[in-house]
């Protein structure tokens, strides 16, 4: 089976809009969370959100290309642009070679709701213009990236709620492993508008710590009260190893393995067993043992039940005996969602970028805002201050809201 490596990355997130800034935000433990006051009038209980700037695309894309971009596709454009530049792939290369695209995205609520409201106001669907028919599709990210960057290979959209971005990377890796493609842009994108998360506020999953945004996302803290929605986009250029070597590409990491599972619990309820299986399947796929993993980028979103289930699953797989013994040789764990909030459909891809940046720069970002560790996480090697570390293998968890789990494992190719 062919090997799959990462030869380019791009990111547009609430903790930075380029790789360098994001690396420093991770190292410094900077929060990207703020308040969207307008949500109050919509009946939101949580006004918290990752604050993601909208890119000014007028100087970068012509009107027709901008017209079909949803909010999340705008972010994806910026992330993909950086990833291809980072991989030293230009437009000519894209035109002359077959590059695929796989993006994780599970809603385009902004476009759907705006279309309905505008048509109702105008009394005429012709007043929507031509772009909304494209923007309203969950596949709008992948189709627009293919259109803009001339990606003429496979084109897939993965939709599995909060594991969509991770599934995109895993699917892209499978396509390269099997020889279907030599190179694929894989990523995830997430809208942040007020329509995007309204139903999640309605099922009481969001933090209500409105008076203290930077401390609202607090995975593994005993006093967490829900997730903080966030968004943006992340993109990775995945490439077959020999292909990357032949063109002299810089290799940032290798996709060592991936694993999937579906929970056995009712929708909306996490499953320790399901999450354990995803991690175990990923280890088996990578032909690794638990002790080979140096760092775990936890899914931990700061919800009450979700963090407990993951802590239990990690303990079961990585701390099968006494948690307190030999703790320094167990994988250390952090949730970068403490900084970014929950980037939802994008999270699996953005956390892949965060993890690889940490591997590349020999540190683990802190899980901030833990004042009192939850009992379920006690004895786990959770990083609360930035930690210098050589990471050989890192594991990243993404657990979808509908019980769809995906775990990725990355190998550091620098050490």
């Amino acid at each position, binding site marked *: 089976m062919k090997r799959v490596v990462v030869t380019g990355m791009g990111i547009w997130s609430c903790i930075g809009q380029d790789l360098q800034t994001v690396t420093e935000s991770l190292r410094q433990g900077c929060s990207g969370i703020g308040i969207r006051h307008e949500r109050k009038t919509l009946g939101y209980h949580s006004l918290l959100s990752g604050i993601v700037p909208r890119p000014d695309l007028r100087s970068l894309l*012509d*009107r*027709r290309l901008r*017209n079909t971009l949803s909010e999340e596709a705008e972010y994806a454009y910026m992330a993909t642009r950086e990833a291809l530049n980072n991989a030293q792939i230009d437009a000519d290369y894209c035109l002359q070679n077959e590059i695929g695209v796989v993006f994780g995205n599970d809603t385009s609520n902004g476009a759907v709701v705006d279309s309905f409201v505008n048509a109702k106001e105008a009394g*005429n669907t*012709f*007043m*929507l*213009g*031509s772009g909304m028919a494209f923007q309203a599709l969950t596949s709008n990210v992948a189709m627009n990236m293919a259109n803009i960057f001339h990606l003429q290979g496979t084109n897939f959209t993965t939709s599995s709620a909060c594991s969509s971005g991770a599934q995109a990377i895993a699917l892209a890796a499978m396509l390269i492993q099997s020889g279907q493609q030599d190179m694929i842009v894989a990523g995830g994108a997430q809208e942040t508008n007020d329509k995007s998360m309204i139903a999640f506020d309605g099922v009481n999953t969001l933090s209500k710590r409105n008076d203290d945004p930077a401390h609202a996302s607090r995975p593994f803290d005993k006093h967490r009260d829900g997730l903080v929605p966030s968004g943006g986009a992340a993109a990775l250029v995945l490439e077959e190893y020999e292909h990357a070597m032949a063109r002299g590409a810089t290799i940032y990491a290798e996709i060592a393995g991936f694993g999937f599972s579906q929970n056995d619990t009712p929708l909306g309820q996490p499953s320790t067993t399901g999450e354990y299986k995803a991690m175990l399947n990923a280890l088996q796929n990578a032909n690794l043992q638990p002790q080979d993993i140096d760092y775990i980028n936890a899914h931990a979103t700061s919800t009450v039940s979700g963090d407990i289930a993951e802590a239990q699953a990690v303990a079961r797989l990585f701390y099968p005996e006494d948690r307190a013994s030999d703790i320094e040789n167990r994988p250390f764990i952090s949730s970068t969602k403490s900084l970014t909030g929950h980037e939802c459909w994008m999270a699996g891809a953005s956390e892949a970028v965060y993890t690889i940046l940490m591997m590349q720069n020999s540190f683990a970002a802190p899980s901030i805002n833990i004042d009192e560790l939850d009992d379920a996480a006690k004895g786990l090697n959770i990083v609360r201050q930035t930690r210098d570390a050589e990471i050989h293998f890192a594991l990243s968890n993404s657990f979808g809201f509908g019980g769809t789990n995906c775990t990725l494992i990355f190998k550091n190719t620098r050490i």
Partner: protein
Amino acid sequence: MTKQEIIEKTNAFLVDEYEKDPALLKPEARFREDLDLNSLDYMDLMVTVKREFDIMPAPAEMNLVVTLGDFYDFIEKKLNEPAKTNE
């Protein structure tokens, strides 16, 4: 609205919103061939026409517009039509 005002308003949004080269904006310029406006752009033009002139053309009417000069004439004609009442 005078014909000159229609021309100025139209040319302004074609430059600002549709990013067309002002040098191309001559009455004889063909929408599709010279100004590179396709069928989807025509749908967007309907939205712009509503916003700028407060008239709502039908797609079939817009499809009869071939040149920029036709468009000026079409807008002038629509603006001068007596208001329709609902039956």
